[in-house]
């Protein structure tokens, strides 16, 4: 469906993207995940045609659209702040893409209205067509923006931080709703997020980006369980990092707070200086004896809470080792 080859982009002296290759299959739900400045939004805008790459090609459905402007790419784009036309009613917003058509593609007014109504029903905003965007809640506006993008029957749906401006509860509901909608419509979709939880929950595949490069592409479970670079290990999920004694400088062992076994004769000893409940587990934080490294551990909350000042001995039972270049030198150790 989408094939990106060698996409590069600079903004003045600032390199935003370095040679991005990405393939997306029809019907896939893809998350572009990365911190701000990683180039994820730039990549999304290049796929849409709102921005143009300096070099590389963009293929949509086998067609080279590298130099086509957004208006001719037939993609639906949902903006982070919705970009609803505030002087138009919700129905007119949704029908905008149909009403600007000229010539033989132009539907009669009644048909455009019927289509807008149909889309509003799809996004569960039936009956709100005569309101103005200013009279809607954040979550409702988001759904209007989605309906407006879907009205042009796009071959691809692109969403820029779709839940960024919403509060936590609405965000969670909308997330599930979008997931269902995607399944129901079978549309190929790509969304940008800096929220790993969102990416892992929604996407079929997660594309982790950092400093204009793709660090790893994979199913959420694979990205979480088998991060291929120190950045992914650190950015997706929580990770403890320990320097490896007796190896080249910069080598690190990464393990997640729950990837440990308690053992009275464990190799590591944590001196607990903070404890709190983190959902279903106890989170104990503190410095390791010897190396003085800061570490977080998850302990079953069925047991007693760890005490401050207590020493917890443990072994990481599953860990990854990276050398100073960020190459993985060893998979699951110990």
């Amino acid at each position, binding site marked *: 469906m989408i094939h990106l080859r060698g996409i590069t982009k600079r903004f003045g002296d600032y390199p935003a993207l370095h040679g991005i290759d990405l393939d997306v299959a029809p019907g896939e739900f893809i998350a572009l995940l990365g911190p701000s400045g990683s180039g994820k939004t730039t990549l999304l805008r290049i796929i849409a045609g709102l921005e143009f790459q300096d070099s590389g090609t963009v293929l949509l459905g086998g067609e080279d659209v590298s130099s086509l402007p*957004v208006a001719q790419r037939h993609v639906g784009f949902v903006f982070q702040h919705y970009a609803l036309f505030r002087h138009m009613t919700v129905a007119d917003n949704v029908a905008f893409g149909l009403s600007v*058509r000229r010539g033989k593609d132009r539907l009669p007014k009644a048909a455009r209205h019927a289509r807008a109504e149909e889309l509003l029903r799809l996004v569960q905003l039936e009956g709100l067509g005569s309101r103005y965007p200013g009279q809607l809640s954040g979550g409702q506006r988001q759904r209007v923006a989605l309906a*407006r993008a879907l009205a042009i029957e796009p071959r691809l749906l692109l969403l820029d931080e779709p839940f960024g401006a919403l509060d936590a509860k609405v965000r969670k509901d909308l997330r599930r709703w979008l997931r269902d909608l995607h399944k129901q419509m079978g549309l190929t979709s790509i969304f940008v997020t800096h929220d790993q939880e969102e990416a892992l929950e929604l996407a079929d595949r997660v594309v982790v980006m950092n400093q204009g490069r793709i660090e790893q592409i994979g199913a959420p479970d694979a990205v979480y369980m088998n991060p291929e670079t120190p950045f992914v290990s650190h950015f997706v999920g929580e990770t403890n990092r320990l320097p490896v004694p007796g190896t080249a400088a910069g080598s690190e062992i990464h393990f997640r707070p729950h990837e440990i076994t308690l053992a009275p004769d464990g190799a590591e000893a944590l001196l607990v200086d903070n404890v709190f409940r983190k959902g279903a587990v106890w989170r104990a934080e503190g410095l390791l004896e010897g190396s003085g490294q800061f570490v977080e551990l998850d302990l079953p909350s069925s047991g007693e809470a760890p005490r401050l000042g207590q020493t917890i001995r443990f072994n990481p039972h599953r860990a990854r080792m990276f050398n100073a270049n960020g190459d993985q030198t060893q998979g699951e150790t110990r």
Partner: protein
Amino acid sequence: MSMAPTSESPLARAALITVALVFLGFFLLLPLLAVFSEALRQGAGPFLDALHTPDALAAIRLTLLIAAISVPLNMVFGVAASWAITKFQFPGKALLITLIDLPFSVSPVVSGLIFVLLFGANGLFGAWLAEHDLKIIFAVPGIVLATVFITFPFVARELIPLMLEQGKDDEEAAISLGANGWQTFWHVTLPNIRWGLLYGVLLCNARAMGEFGAVSVVSGHIRGETNTMPLHVEILYNEYDFVGAFAVASLLALLALVTLIAKTVLEWRFGLHAGARH
């Protein structure tokens, strides 16, 4: 009774308000009242007669004509410049922003002189113009040019901050939905900026009708032909026709008041600056 932490003592507040009111009354209200009282000193009859002289009527007509030409021109220029500055990246953008402010920072007399130097008899294009029997300086085209130059910043200055604040998202959304440039401007951009534009046009119009310095340099003060209202006021005043001078001046003052009221109504009705993005 508790006081807000940032508020001054009642005494200081009263003093500040008094100073502001006295200053305002002395420098704004008093002159305004003087204009109308001088104009009506000998009653309504002489006031109306003064406005009915052929020269006064010609000055009013010319002023309206100048405004009718320069305001629409600057509306188009202002929108185009603001659009270019806020929606595109291009080299020389900073220079363009500075240039837009030039008429504000240059003395109007200098602005007028620029056109004399360009189009006057001894000016850069003077010989060529004379050859083709075209008259710009000491004629209506020169007055239009000077007025357009002087009033150029009003619309752009009003729109640039507004359009910067609104960003490009709405326009990008429109083109992603298949709208062309004109549809995007007409259905999305223009509705977003309409009140700011109207406000800029009002200010532009007030200045176009009231401009003295630049117009004075290029007009040549030909009675009944190239005298605008402000120039006519000066001529009458210099001839000791005080009622006539103040009668025409009161028309200009009235225009200023109408502009102020319209501006206030706009701000109150649409929260122009408080909530441009509602």
